[in-house]
């Protein structure tokens, strides 16, 4: 009986979810040594070895299984279901979770991080489990519970280094933003409860609501899930949270947790039989704005992880644009465009879950090696950590959406959608193509800066001069992700085979039976030719320079005889030209000391990119609200006997309410 159940892939997936949740538990009991962490990594690998084949099986055969836990909690039986959409969003979880666990063995080792390692390992597993539960839950109350567990585990992970004030600040902003988002979700599920009479999720395309109510549901979902997905201007928590968390945590927060927000938006949209046109317009506009603003601000960052965090906002913007295009096309009955938009969005979900963790892992290795997060203090790392440098190059090229990597394939689908609209009567949507091109151009600025300043040139500080290569446990997950990024760029049909079932689950059966305008084989042809030609030319040039006389010498200093590492172009100066052009979007504070006299004394120049929305709008508003609600603080005074009175009064009120 038990073994029969284990033949069901859906049961296997649920076992894997449980295993992931428990993975950090033995470590809590084992007081010392690295054993707990190793057990956790082994459990994480095992859970993904169980889950990934089962998920691919479920997607391939387009199966849906559901389970009901009949518990006696007040919100009714609790349903868990694995449809293709859920299975699709479980893939990034079970891809990044074991990779991050493995990476943590070298990056956050139990030996040198003995104070925080056990809690980080425990909450890492719990976060993966909670995210998986959010994706499979079909009951509003269960969804909210899993959502809260997810948000709180994220909080405890990100404040791992809570001795630093910056980390605590980031944690507080994250916690507040996360709960404001959860409040919006409360509105969403309460509205659903009032209109359907149960916490159970309505079946796909079955929710018939008045226009006003569906607008409320959509806006609440967009606010709640959009803030989790980091859409502008709800992104305020994201850059500082992702920058201050340990890098393997940033990888899962950025690579996976943001996608849970996207899942939520898609799930809510799936309830409605005919989503109105303006939803699509709103999502497209929000997506393109997020993409453009996110990447523009990323180009101005000087903290390597903050740059990556802003580029997550850009990528989530692209995903959101894809969903918006799908909704617009579905509302106007354009099947090809609907397919291209949604397939681009889902494909990009997978892609971003591959190259963003790769880049966060490499940022972690870089920070580990150079001892700083500031780009302007790095440099020359490629000489000392060549393997990390090579894998990071793959990630940087992939995230810019350049061939032959996977980012190009998903952006290509979106471009095809935009260009297809060029022949429509009113080609408004075609205007997305130049915007996306501009986003791509700024992405090249940002990632040339990140890669060139961190890895190339001469070391700018002592720390980066003495850097060292990352250990195998850190390189292996990065290598795997780089390989997947290349695979997705050369053979996008493999990834589309995973995307199509999820797409059919959302857009209705048969929605994926659309002939792509471009034969996927061209990706392999173009990418393959590009790789072969590059390697051939590289070897040819190497041979040529062997044949002629080859010498080495210092970099040509244009006649200046005493060049030093400090006169190199820094990341800040690299981004300054674009920053000056996009000054309204990228606000920076530049403080420069005065240079006076014939022989001026030493002076300083500092450059700080500003968090405009947070610092200029939200923090002043919050402090005003704080003054207004100062009287509430009197309720919290630390006197235990009055607290007992509160509890008693609450209990009494609840009993009165029940009767």
């Amino acid at each position, binding site marked *: 009986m038990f073994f029969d159940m284990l033949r069901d892939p859906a049961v296997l997936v649920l076992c894997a979810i449980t295993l992931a949740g428990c993975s950090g538990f033995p470590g809590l009991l084992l007081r010392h040594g690295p054993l707990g962490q190793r057990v956790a990594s082994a459990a994480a690998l095992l859970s993904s070895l169980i889950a990934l084949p089962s998920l691919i099986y479920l997607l391939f055969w387009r199966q849906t299984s559901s389970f009901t836990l009949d518990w006696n909690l007040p919100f009714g039986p609790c349903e868990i279901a694995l449809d293709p959409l859920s299975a699709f969003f479980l893939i990034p979880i079970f891809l990044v979770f074991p990779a991050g666990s493995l990476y943590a063995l070298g990056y956050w080792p139990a030996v040198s991080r003995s104070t925080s390692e056990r809690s980080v390992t425990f909450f890492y597993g719990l976060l993966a489990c909670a995210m998986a539960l959010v994706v499979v839950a079909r009951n509003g109350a269960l969804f909210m519970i899993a959502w809260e567990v997810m948000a709180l585990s994220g909080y405890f992970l990100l404040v791992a280094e809570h001795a630093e004030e910056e980390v605590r600040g980031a944690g507080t902003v994250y916690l507040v933003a996360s709960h404001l988002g959860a409040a919006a979700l409360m509105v969403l599920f309460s509205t659903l409860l009032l209109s359907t009479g149960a916490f159970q999720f309505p079946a796909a395309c079955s929710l018939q609501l008045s226009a006003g109510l569906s607008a409320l549901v959509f806006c609440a979902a967009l606010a709640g899930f959009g803030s989790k997905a980091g859409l502008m201007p709800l992104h305020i928590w994201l850059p500082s949270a992702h920058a201050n968390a340990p890098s393997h945590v940033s990888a899962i927060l950025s690579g996976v947790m943001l996608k849970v927000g996207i899942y939520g938006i898609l799930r809510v949209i799936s309830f409605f039989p005919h989503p109105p046109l303006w939803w699509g317009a709103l999502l497209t506009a929000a997506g393109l704005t997020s993409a453009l603003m996110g990447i523009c601000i990323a180009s101005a960052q000087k903290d390597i992880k903050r740059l990556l965090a802003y580029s997550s906002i850009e990528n989530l913007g692209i995903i959101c644009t894809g969903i918006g295009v799908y909704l617009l096309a579905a509302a106007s009955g354009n099947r090809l465009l609907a397919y291209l938009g949604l397939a681009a969005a889902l494909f990009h979900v997978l892609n971003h879950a591959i190259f963003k963790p790769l880049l966060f892992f490499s940022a972690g290795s870089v920070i580990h090696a150079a001892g700083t997060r500031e780009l302007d203090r790095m440099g020359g790392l490629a000489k000392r950590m060549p393997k990390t440098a090579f894998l990071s190059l793959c990630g940087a090229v992939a995230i810019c959406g350049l061939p032959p990597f996977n980012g190009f394939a998903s952006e290509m689908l979106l471009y095809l959608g935009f260009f297809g609209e060029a022949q429509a009567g009113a080609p408004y949507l075609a205007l997305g193509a130049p915007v996306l091109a501009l986003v791509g151009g700024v992405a090249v600025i940002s990632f040339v800066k990140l890669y060139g300043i961190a890895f190339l*040139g001469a070391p700018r500080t002592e720390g980066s001069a003495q850097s060292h290569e990352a250990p195998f446990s850190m390189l292996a997950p990065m290598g795997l992700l780089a390989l997947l990024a290349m695979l997705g760029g050369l053979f996008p049909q493999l990834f589309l085979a995973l995307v199509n079932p999820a797409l059919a689950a959302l857009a209705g059966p048969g929605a994926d039976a659309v002939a792509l305008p471009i034969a996927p084989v061209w990706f392999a042809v173009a990418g393959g030719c590009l790789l072969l030609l590059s390697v051939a030319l*590289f070897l040819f040039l190497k041979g040529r320079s062997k044949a002629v006389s080859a010498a080495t*010498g210092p970099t040509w200093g244009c006649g200046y005889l005493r060049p030093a590492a400090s006169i190199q172009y820094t990341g800040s100066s690299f981004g300054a030209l674009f920053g000056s052009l996009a000054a309204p979007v990228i606000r920076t504070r530049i403080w420069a000391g005065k240079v006076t006299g014939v022989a001026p004394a030493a002076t300083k120049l500092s450059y700080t990119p500003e968090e405009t929305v947070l610092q200029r709008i939200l923090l002043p508003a919050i402090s005003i609200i704080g003054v207004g609600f100062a009287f509430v603080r009197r309720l919290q005074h630390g006197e235990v006997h009055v607290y007992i009175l509160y509890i008693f009064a609450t209990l009494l009120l609840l009993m009165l309410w029940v009767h």
Partner: protein
Amino acid sequence: MIDTLLHVVLVLAMPPLLLGVIGKTKAAFAGRVGAPFLQPYYDLSRLMRKGVVISDTTTWIFRAGPAVTLAATLFAALLVPLGKHAAPVSFEGDMILFAYLFALGRFFTTVAALDTGSSFEGMGAAREVTFSCLAEPALFFALITLTRLSGTMSLTPMLNHVTSPVWLAAGASLILLLAGLFVVLLAENCRIPFDDPNTHLELTMIHEVMVLDHSGPYFGCILYGAALKLYLLGALFVNIAVPFASGNTLVDWALFALSMLVLAVAIGVVESVMARLRLIRVPQLLVAAMILTAFSLVLVVR
């Protein structure tokens, strides 16, 4: 078959000639005799035989930069039709690949420049990525207009569609589009008024300054790649600007080669009569190009 062969031969052999023609034109304007037309070929063959000096600061990325950039440009050369002939490789969406191949080349050129640790090259790299990112939307607006006119998303049918009747019907739009594309052509290839390919005054340059440290065969590779890029964007321009086709293959090829030479003369004239813009004016001109191509779209939509 013969078309494909001619395409490959022209793409491999003709680009440096364009540089020679531009140089000769500029010399004529300055009242000099100037270097022979074939000078760029002599330069290339000499560079291939010259010794290499490589900076100690650099890694393999410095050497991979020219290789990847040239590989991307060579593949892009297979996508653009020359004259009213079909390109060897053509599929729906190839124009997006075309634009992104140049972006890939740019990524590797600028990364290789940063690998030297020279502040001049860093400066050039920053300018290159910034100005190209402004040129990108102009190119895409032009592609949207062409997609709307021709109803296809592939360069060969799109550019072969532009014939005399199309010019009569949408001439105004095509003129705006060509004006925008010409600015993009000059900017992407670092010609005056954006950049001066002849000076070696580092503080004012973009492209030349990025490749200061490359020498010998590596520099030859870069020089040839730059000529090829000029040739490809020029072919894009010429295909729209010259809408005639005789039907006779050989006559058409000759017409195309001739138009390319005329374009080179035109670039030479622009370079002779204009001064280089101040650096802060460059973005304004690029935005102007974007507006021109955007209006060409408005004119075909109306």
